[in-house]
């Protein structure tokens, strides 16, 4: 039992990372019906920006908490700008063309980011600086252990979720996002600047992926230009699992996938881990294509 709970805790921290990335997939899909396959690479870029800012800030002698927060903020800001730029240059010109054209472009952008990364940073993995001392806490006198990093991941994720929820529910931009995802044409005619709303969506999604990149780096200590591929795909699975287009769905899908994966590895099938994630995708697509929280899509005639 304790072993199971231990793995559950580990699973939640992996799942939080998936959830943060999945949010970007789901928000972008919700608003322009595009699976942005370059999203995993925005996560990678965010991780690298976090790495360089953390290195710089730590050398400059800031206390660890400040280094963490500033690295997150810097990485999220720059990645948000990257997201906006990608949308403007690559997807916006294709807004009126077929969805498959935009999808293929997304794959192209993904390769572009990956191999620009390889070109500039080199293909080898780099060590992420230890921002905080790693501590182990023991829970309730049992043998269950929680690492300080896992606490940090959960805290960061929860805070970002609350901010996101606030933006989507209560701000002008958030309401515009919901209106646009509901009916672009009507939103436009109600005075909503659709282009700006789409940019905001990309910015927010990319910022969340960047945050995931930074905490990923801190947890696994190793970042490389191709690191975004697998987490990107897994987060996509998580988004579909939760119901693509649904924000709570992305969160639940991410956490669920993370725990399933960790439990599978803990049972001794660690080489099956990725396979299980994609098996989940296949099962969902067969039995409940709209996902756990997804609405049944009615095609407009």
């Amino acid at each position: 039992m304790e072993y199971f709970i231990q793995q559950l805790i580990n699973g939640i921290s992996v799942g939080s990372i998936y959830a943060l990335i999945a949010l970007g997939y789901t928000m972008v899909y919700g608003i322009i019906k595009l699976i942005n396959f370059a999203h995993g690479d925005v996560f990678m870029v965010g991780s690298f920006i976090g790495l360089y800012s953390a290195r710089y800030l730590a050398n400059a002698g800031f206390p660890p908490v400040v280094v963490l927060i500033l690295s997150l903020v810097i990485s999220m800001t720059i990645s948000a700008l990257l997201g906006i730029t990608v949308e403007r240059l690559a997807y916006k010109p294709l807004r009126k063309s077929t969805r498959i054209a935009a999808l293929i472009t997304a794959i192209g952008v993904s390769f572009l980011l990956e191999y620009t990364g390889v070109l500039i940073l080199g293909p080898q993995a780099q060590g992420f600086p230890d921002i905080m001392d790693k501590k182990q806490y023991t829970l309730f006198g049992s043998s269950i252990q929680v690492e300080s990093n896992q606490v940090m991941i959960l805290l960061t994720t929860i805070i970002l979720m609350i901010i996101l929820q606030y933006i989507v529910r209560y701000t002008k931009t958030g309401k515009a996002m919901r209106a646009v995802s509901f009916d672009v044409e009507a939103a436009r005619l109600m005075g909503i600047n659709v282009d700006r709303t789409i940019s905001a969506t990309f910015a927010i999604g990319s910022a969340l992926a960047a945050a995931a990149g930074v905490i990923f780096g801190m947890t696994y200590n190793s970042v490389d230009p191709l690191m975004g591929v697998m987490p990107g795909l897994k987060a996509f699975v998580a988004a579909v699992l939760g119901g693509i287009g649904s924000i709570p769905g992305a969160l639940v899908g991410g956490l669920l996938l993370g725990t399933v994966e960790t439990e599978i590895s803990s049972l001794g099938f660690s080489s099956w881990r990725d396979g299980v994630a994609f098996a989940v995708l296949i099962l969902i697509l067969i039995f409940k294509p709209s996902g756990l929280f997804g609405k049944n899509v009615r095609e407009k005639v």
Partner: protein
Amino acid sequence: MTQSAKTVLLDVKEASRSFGGLKALSEVSLHIDTGELIGLIGPNGAGKTTLFNLLTGVYPPSTGSIILNNESIGGMKPYKINHKGAARTFQNIRLFTSMTVLENVKIAFHQHARHSLFTSMLRLPKHFKGEDEITQKAMDILKIFDLDEQSEEVASNLSYGNQRRLEIARALAAGPKLLLLDEPAAGMNPNETRDLMNLIAWIRKEFDLTILLIEHDMSLVMGVCDRIYVLDRGMLIANGTPTEIRSNPKVIEAYLGQEA
């Protein structure tokens, strides 16, 4: 009519729109003075909604010009035209049905609000002031349409007639000078229709509106409109007061078909 000089609010000059080989509108010219309530009628497929789409920027006119309040809006983006003062409703209701009644109206207000994502995020006083003001204004408008008690209801739960009314309320929230109503009474029963027409006449006075109204129910259009334009197969075939239109042979022909 009045002693003050009439000003032209909307001036459409020879506007055409084709889709591929199909000419949906050909060289339509019309003008609407400030404060008028104008009816736009015509058989199905005459191009009424196409004209609305040109006026609100859904697509640009193929040729010709559209001038709103001395400013050319032909080909301008829809949200900008909305900001310039033209708001509309839809023939098939297009509310944001998963949002509440209040949110539907607030969203239109928001686009004209001064507070930004930044001030809201930091929860600056400006945000609260702006937000309270918007909620208040939205509730005021809902009250006019007798929807204030259902403000927290999800829009899709409203009755059909109330959804139609909410669409008008949402359009009004943009603070338009020109209100374009695309079959506002479609599907309503005669009682609801009569109430709606009274309401339209009332908001026209209350908000100093100029209204262009598409409607199928002839008796209704005849009752409330100052002037009527008649479209048939993309062309304007008549223009005049309800009495003139009623006796216009071309209109009768368009509606009843040519007599053998």
